[in-house]
């Protein structure tokens, strides 16, 4: 039984393949301008700060090592976290999949008789499609992150992990706020818009007794949770309410409190191009008199344990959700996030989403890349994204090639034929000779092939091919030897 879809075009089970999804976006000039502008701003800031940090590479290595160590012993660290958090007064729940997590969260809300919740932005809750599920169960979820309100009120979908509304410009925000907050005289100046959001949310923070958050890090040693933010809505949600529910992927845990000294130096610079984000909050369990007295953590698997089991792909789980990869990606720059059909877009989305879906969906995403490797260079935890993309391509192809639908697909037929030809020398030479004759048909007088039929047409749609030369290298070499002898 599936919940109503939160972001229809960001559901991997329903989204069109990347090439189809990208086409309308490529035609949207305004969106491409917004995306490019946002990316340029963050990239410039990040570049400056990374250059100034002389131990940046050492930090990356340490972070990758810490994450690898954690993943290799994930069970033990999660159990340690559970023990410490529980000893400090928190309740720890385990969710095998999205449906499990939704059920657990709803049960807690029912116990609290909550019909409203305030939320700190969390990709994980979008991953499990929580909001529409709660809505259907009679619980209204209010996003409190500025970008998330813009999207919630404007019924839009996030297009970036860190700056989800980067595709929305100020005029569009003004229109959304004026309409939904009843402020017809609102200007489109960002300051005024932010003020409107501040006032709109103030009452919610003070009145709603239940909050849901994600977690940037879980600390096994102390049972603590860390949340990194800029606006202060996080602090509001984790301080004022009576009940707090933190939903966290199992890969969010780090072994020691001290490990945060590495992670937090990397995260702010990578995500927003700052030395440190304005507010970082850490809390452990329940502290009498200060903050929520009813605290729950929901640990989410939802496909992560299957990624854990694969040698090449395990590093996917190192991700700290900084979005540096998509900020540097030449493909993402042109298409923005919606084309990826997932709440996780860009390079990390291209490897994470298909895997969370057990390769049943989002199979086109590993191919949505030029393999330039820029993402690998900027990843603060050194995830070798290109390596994983290639491995996923192989797995998707293996999966596909035997299905009835693809068996007679021209490309697979062509590759099977090529396989036969390339494995017999005489057939290969014959094919070269026959190919030269055949190519004459499609080669123009200028020596170029401008258009090919069928599958070949996909190449020549945007590229020209050189016509085949008169001799193969082997033939030329034989001729040369003959000439030398004579």
């Amino acid at each position, binding site marked *: 039984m599936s919940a109503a879809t939160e972001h229809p075009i960001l559901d991997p089970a329903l989204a069109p393949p990347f090439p189809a999804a990208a086409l309308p976006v490529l035609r949207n000039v305004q969106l491409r301008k917004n995306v490019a502008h946002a990316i340029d701003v963050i990239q410039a800031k990040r570049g400056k700060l990374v250059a100034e940090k002389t*131990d940046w590479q050492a930090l990356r290595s340490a972070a990758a*090592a810490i994450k690898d160590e954690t993943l290799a012993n994930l069970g033990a660290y999660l159990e340690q976290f559970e023990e410490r958090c529980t000893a400090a007064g928190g309740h720890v729940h*385990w969710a095998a999949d999205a449906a499990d997590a939704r059920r657990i969260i709803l049960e807690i809300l029912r116990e609290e008789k909550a019909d409203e919740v305030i939320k700190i932005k969390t990709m994980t809750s979008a991953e499990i499609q929580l909001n529409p599920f709660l809505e259907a169960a009679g619980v209204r979820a209010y996003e409190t992150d500025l970008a998330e309100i813009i999207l919630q009120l404007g019924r839009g979908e996030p297009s970036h992990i860190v700056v989800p509304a980067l595709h929305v410009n100020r005029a569009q925000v003004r229109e959304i706020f004026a309409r939904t907050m009843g402020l017809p005289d609102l200007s489109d100046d*960002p300051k005024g818009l932010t003020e409107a959001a501040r006032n709109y949310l103030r009452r919610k923070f003070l009145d709603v007794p239940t909050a849901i958050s994600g977690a940037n890090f879980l600390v096994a040693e102390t049972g603590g949770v860390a949340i990194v933010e*800029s606006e202060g809505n996080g602090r509001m949600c984790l301080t004022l309410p009576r009940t707090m529910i933190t939903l966290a992927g*199992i890969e969010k845990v780090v072994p020691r409190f001290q490990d945060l000294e590495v992670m937090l130096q990397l995260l702010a610079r990578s995500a927003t191009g700052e030395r440190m984000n*304005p507010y970082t909050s*850490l809390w452990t369990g329940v502290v009498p008199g200060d903050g929520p007295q009813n605290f729950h953590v929901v640990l989410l698997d939802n496909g992560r344990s299957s990624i854990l089991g694969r040698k090449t792909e395990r590093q996917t789980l190192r991700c700290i959700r900084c979005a540096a990869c998509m900020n540097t990606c030449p493909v993402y720059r042109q298409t923005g996030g919606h084309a990826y059909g997932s709440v996780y877009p860009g390079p990390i989305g291209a490897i994470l989403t298909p895997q969370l879906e057990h390769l049943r969906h989002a199979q086109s995403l590993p191919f949505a890349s030029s393999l330039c490797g820029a993402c690998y260079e900027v990843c603060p935890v050194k995830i070798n994204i290109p390596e994983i993309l290639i491995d996923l391509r192989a797995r998707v192809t293996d999966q596909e090639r035997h299905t009835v639908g693809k068996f007679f697909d021209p490309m697979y037929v062509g590759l099977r034929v090529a396989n036969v030809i390339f494995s017999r020398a005489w057939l290969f030479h014959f094919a070269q000779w026959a190919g030269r004759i055949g190519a004459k048909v499609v080669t123009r007088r200028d020596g170029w092939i401008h258009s090919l039929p069928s599958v070949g047409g996909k190449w020549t749609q945007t590229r020209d091919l050189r016509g085949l030369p008169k001799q193969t290298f082997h033939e030329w070499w034989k001729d040369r030897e003959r000439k030398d002898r004579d």
Partner: protein
Amino acid sequence: MSAVADSRKKVLEAIHLATGAATAGSAARNGAASAGKAAEGGAEIARGYVRRGDMTVSARHERFVERLREYDAEVVECAPEGLAAAIAAQIEASGMRKFVAPPGIPAEWYVDAARKIEGFECTLDHGLSVAEIEQAEGVLTGCFCGVADSGTIVLHHGPAEGRRVISLLPDWHLCVVRASQVVETLPEYFDRCAIREQGSEGAREQENREPEADKLPRLVTWISGPSATADIEMTRIKGVHGPRFLNVILVRD
């Protein structure tokens, strides 16, 4: 209830299968032990990054002030004997009169202000309600530590820093940082966590010893400038939720 235990078992079994670790059963029994072992293994992680800074004391303080100002925090410096006067001056200049403060604040901090400023009111937080805190225009706190490299102020919410709510709701935060509390790098702050008790302001220094998990702070807030957003066209706007104004007094002690 059994559904709950089932999910836990399912997840842990899937993880153990994936990592080739011990079975879920024995891991549950040895949970703490295996995590301890794992933690020991983790101590061998090569930490080639900079842990200790090498700036001089005055350069460090200058850097701290510089970085705070980059975030639009206002910073003034004073000598220890001039602290009360500096606090009074800042409050006077702000135009704010109704203040809230943690109960462990030294009374000397606000005597000058109380004497000189007409209408100044400082309510100590002995369990104030949210509605009462909402009335305050400003909050006065100490801190646990300052990190120069990133212009960060760290609160561990001890007696002189207060509950988290009082440094969150008022619009103006005046924070007193002693120069001796300022370190250069973030790792140096983590080292300090391990050796000091909570409730730093006025607390005794503990002797240098191995970090113990239960001595680590339960509540931490790191503040690096006033709240901000860049969600609308990447234009940085100060002050969304949380104090819009952060003023720092650096005491040269």
